[in-house]
């Protein structure tokens, strides 16, 4: 393998890693916030606000129903406003995170909902304020499960990022399409797939390891 080709692979890998890690960071922060709001505003939550809960839930469902490739286009004005351009790796980050925030939020919501109600009751009984319950009970108790959700989301993110080429975002997926598919360079396609499998596996194992490390339930 000649050096320019190797450089191209490394370049694409770095673009993918940049897109995925920045989008993940955004999705984690935003998703956690949305999930906490969803959990807390539920009828039996810490701050029951059924109407807000319902509205938020519907908005999330709407976002999840839109296919990524359409979101990519639909969000172009937003992307231009935030990033200043609609082309390139950074421009891909906007639709990528927008696409996976609702997905991750739902996963975290399930994790938070499965925290045993008895623990919340005990926290209330000991004089915890509602914020303390989120901080010391809900999030720490759900952490192993949230880490599992981060793993799933990160892998979905790597998959989705393949489409980022449509806005010139580059990355491994873009390379596979342009060289492997459009130029019939099967070898490139094959190599990219191998790299993606390796990347997914690393994320999966790391995620499982972290979840195990933080789980003290048994």
């Amino acid at each position: 393998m000649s050096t320019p080709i190797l450089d191209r692979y490394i370049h694409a890998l770095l673009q993918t890693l940049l897109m995925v890690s920045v989008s993940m960071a955004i999705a984690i922060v935003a998703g956690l916030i949305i999930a906490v709001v969803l959990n807390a505003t539920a009828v039996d939550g810490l701050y029951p606000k059924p109407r807000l809960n319902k509205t938020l839930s519907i908005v999330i469902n709407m976002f999840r129903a839109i296919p990524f490739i359409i979101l990519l286009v639909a969000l172009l004005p937003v992307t231009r406003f935030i990033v200043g351009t609609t082309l390139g790796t950074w421009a891909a980050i906007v639709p990528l995170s927008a696409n996976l925030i609702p997905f991750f939020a739902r996963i975290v919501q399930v994790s938070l909902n499965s925290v045993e109600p008895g623990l919340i009751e005990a926290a209330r009984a000991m004089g915890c304020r509602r914020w303390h319950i989120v901080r010391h009970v809900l999030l720490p108790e759900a952490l192993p499960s949230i880490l599992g959700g981060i793993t799933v989301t990160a892998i979905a993110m790597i998959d989705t990022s393949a489409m980022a080429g449509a806005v010139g975002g580059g990355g491994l997926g873009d390379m596979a399409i342009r060289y492997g598919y459009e130029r019939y360079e099967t070898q490139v396609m094959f190599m990219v797939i191998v790299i993606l499998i390796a990347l997914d596996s690393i994320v999966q194992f790391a995620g499982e390891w972290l979840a195990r490390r933080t789980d003290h339930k048994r």
Partner: protein
Amino acid sequence: MSFEPAISYVPGLSQIPVRGSSINDVHDSVRRVVSGPLPDAKTLDVHIAFENLQKHYSGRKGTVTALRDVSFNVERGEIFGIIGRSGAGKSTLLRAINMLESPSSGRVRVDNIDVGTLDEDALVALRQRIGMIFQHFNLLSAKTVRENVGLPLRVAGVKPKIVQERVDALLELVGLRDKADIYPAKLSGGQKQRVGIARALVHNPEILLCDEATSALDPETTQSILDLLRDINRKLGLTIVLITHDMSVIREICHKVLVLDGGQVVERGEVWEVFGNPQADATRALLRPLLHDLPLDLADRLVADLRGQPGETILKVQFPGNGLPGGVPFAALAALGQGANLLHGGLDRLRGHAQGNLLISVPVQGWNEEQARKTLPAAHIEVLGYVHANT
């Protein structure tokens, strides 16, 4: 069964530091200052007052009433047991004290303050004065034993150094000093409940609520947890309100008992009174496992009339608990009739009162009912029937 020294009844004992006990030394250092003048002796006694408490839940199948017009007082420093079958409303009643559940109508007053009127800040302050332990312990799995016990102080903004001291003293008290840095999942049920107790006591509360605290534990562990609770009640003068469906828990540590059935108070009083002379059906049903009923082999042979043949009179002698401070004299039992035999039964000494029932057989020729009633005036004597002489 348990002998309670009179001192546990001294009102305001919780304000008196007890020397020579490690827990109380720390107690002093973090003790809240009781502000204002001491209330007069009349109001001092009542610690928790329930006034016409009602609770309705509206569900799909209409309204369910969990509590109907419940009123009673819990006095300072006593161990008050609330018993009832599942669904009787015990849990709702207990949770009304620290407002984990708010009643539909009526009031709960703690130290004469209506807890239903408190805002969040005042409620947090109230809850710091009321510890609570649970059937399933409810320890945080992601925190070590030390972090679990220290959490109530941490969220109250207490300095880490004081939290540390306090947690150490409490783990010492519950005998888990060496488990401080492990996670609750690695503990046995009894140890988990000890951590729960340490956590509940970390704020020096005046009240401890126990929600079926021993129901998930084996008999031996139950005993050790009850011993610990009794000890805490004596040493710290804490008022303890516990709910249970197990009468033996009530017998073991409670001073007073309230029987709840279908959301209503059906019986209430000193434990020895209620045990010695239960009035309500629900009470009798709950007491059944502890009563010494007629054994089956005897029941099968029991007849209403011997028709002149030789045999024995079977007596049920019930001691309701009053009038026999020195116990039941052997001589009195012997005086029931020539050849009397003790067949079955048991006596419990509850706070100085002999209470229980005995099955006694007396040969019919030696049986004199009037004589018997004179011999044991403090007992209810009932002739259950007769059995023929052994064939």
